[in-house]
């Protein structure tokens, strides 16, 4: 749990936001995060985020599923409880492929969903600050983290020059917590 100080710029157009992200990075500010109402192609590259490793995790889960299915069926049908199906050999791989395939998909899918939730810190009752509730509607929010070397006034005026409609200094919780938004966070319309 750490409350930090942020300079928050609110943009109303992704065509302005995109070059702004590049300029802010070039100027050397530390972007905490950018919140947008919809996914923007290429924004992750502009922000300098590394590629996700979710697909590697998915591959590992899939292989685990394959190994589980083949391993278990092999053990069950050749060692533990041999059954003669129409004179076929006990180890008859073709018959097991559908189950193996399904288990591969199941492991990969469930594993990736859980990993995705973990990486994004999503879970029931878990709350995170996203600076401006309107970032789920029509506002693009860029939060710059203030370090002890950051001059807030300079950062605010810089955000305005790159096209932010509204710039604020806010103290926000950076981690997740379990609670209720309506008690912990003042909603936008109540601020006005």
């Amino acid at each position: 749990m750490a409350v930090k100080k942020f300079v928050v710029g609110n943009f109303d157009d992704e065509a302005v936001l995109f070059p702004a992200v590049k300029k802010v990075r070039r100027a050397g500010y530390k972007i905490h995060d950018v919140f947008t109402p919809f996914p923007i192609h290429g924004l992750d590259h502009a922000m300098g985020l590394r590629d996700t490793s979710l697909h590697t995790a998915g591959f590992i889960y899939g292989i685990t599923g394959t190994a589980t299915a083949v391993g278990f069926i092999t053990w069950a049908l050749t060692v533990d409880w041999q059954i003669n199906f129409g004179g076929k050999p006990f180890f008859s791989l073709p018959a097991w492929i559908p189950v193996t395939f399904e288990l591969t998909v199941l492991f990969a899918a469930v594993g990736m969903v859980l990993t995705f939730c973990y990486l994004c810190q999503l879970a029931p009752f878990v709350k995170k600050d996203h600076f401006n509730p309107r970032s789920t509607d029509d506002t693009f929010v860029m939060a710059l983290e203030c370090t002890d070397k950051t001059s807030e006034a300079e950062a605010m005026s810089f955000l305005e020059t790159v096209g932010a409609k509204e710039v604020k200094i806010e103290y926000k919780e950076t981690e997740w917590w379990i609670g209720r938004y309506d008690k912990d966070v003042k909603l936008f319309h109540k601020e006005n």
Partner: protein
Amino acid sequence: MSIRENFEVPKRYNTIAIALMAVGILAIAGLWVTSGSSSDPHKSARFWASLLQNSVFFLLVVNASMFFICATTLAWGGWQMAFRRVPEAISAVVPVIGVIAGAILLSIAFGGNHTIYHWTDTEHVAHDPILTHKKGFLNTTFFAVATVLTIVLWSLLGWKMRQLSRSLDTKPLETIAERKKYVWNNTVWAAMFIIVFSLTVMSSIPWLWLMSIDAHWYSTMYSWYTFASTFVSGMALIALFVVFLKNNGYLEYTNNEHLHDIGKFMFAFSVFWTYLWFSQFMLIWYANIPEETVYFQPRAHGVYKGIFWLMFIINFIAPLLILMTRDAKRNYGTITFMAIMIIFGHWLDFYQMVFPSVMKDSTGATHVPNILYDMGVALGFVGLIMFVTGRALTKAPLLAKNHPFVKESLIHHT
């Protein structure tokens, strides 16, 4: 550097294409001398089987390009516009190989040698209750009409789609109404091609041309499986030409994003092919009925075992593991390597569809022929595809810059 709109065929390219065609003709001549001219019908069938396998395979592969164009057109896709002229040029080979394949198919059906299509032997059919029941479908008249009609329709509808695309180069569309009309027009013609395609490649034609070699045996998966085989090879062929043109400084607007999507098609349809291949195999393996397993006996367990499992490794395991990552699909080297592997793998797939049923001697034993001859014939067809596609590429600018969807392709991002 200015944009190089029009492809100019490099001299070496044509030399290689003509050399490959010469290899093909030499291979055909060699086959004719060693087996085709023989009076033993079992021996001369080997010659015709080679021509049948190669011409049908490459005809279906180049026709898959037109399927790709029509499917993306019907889906109102825009991403393929940057390189759409490449599949268009490849599909221009359809009439050429169509004539060759048609001539070969009709020669086999009417040539009097019943080893490949033994349902053409009317005397034999009269004593064979299974073939008598299939007479409505498996008879030479229907075969000839269906073959000619199919090849003519593919060629004509493909020609119409190319015409529609090229008509824009001289006459840009000024108003929104004109563009809407153009897109609609394209959609209607693409839909007609897809209907013809689904009634031929996806259902009846592989039964008629390939499955009827084993006239007693049948599989309802067969056509889909053949379609998947040729479509993934068709995507590999498009990828090869795109990489070739990029390496020669053409197709400025086609970038890694487009290559990535072609790679996804190669990957996804390799898996799709495996799904169909396995679905066909497993049901027959599980039911274990002799009249069905007779198809897989020489292939999976007999002398064609090596080709059968090699093909499975090339067509499934290699694409699955090599093309899985994003970087692999964006790498010219990997894509080129895998495209060649996939085309070769599916050529082997067709090889084991045709030959095990044809290469039977009078005692009923199955043989593997010298595959080098067939590879030579395949090289001849590759040379033909190179030559005709190269010529077709020069006929129109490489970017259909007046198409309403072209911007979508230029800013494409995966």
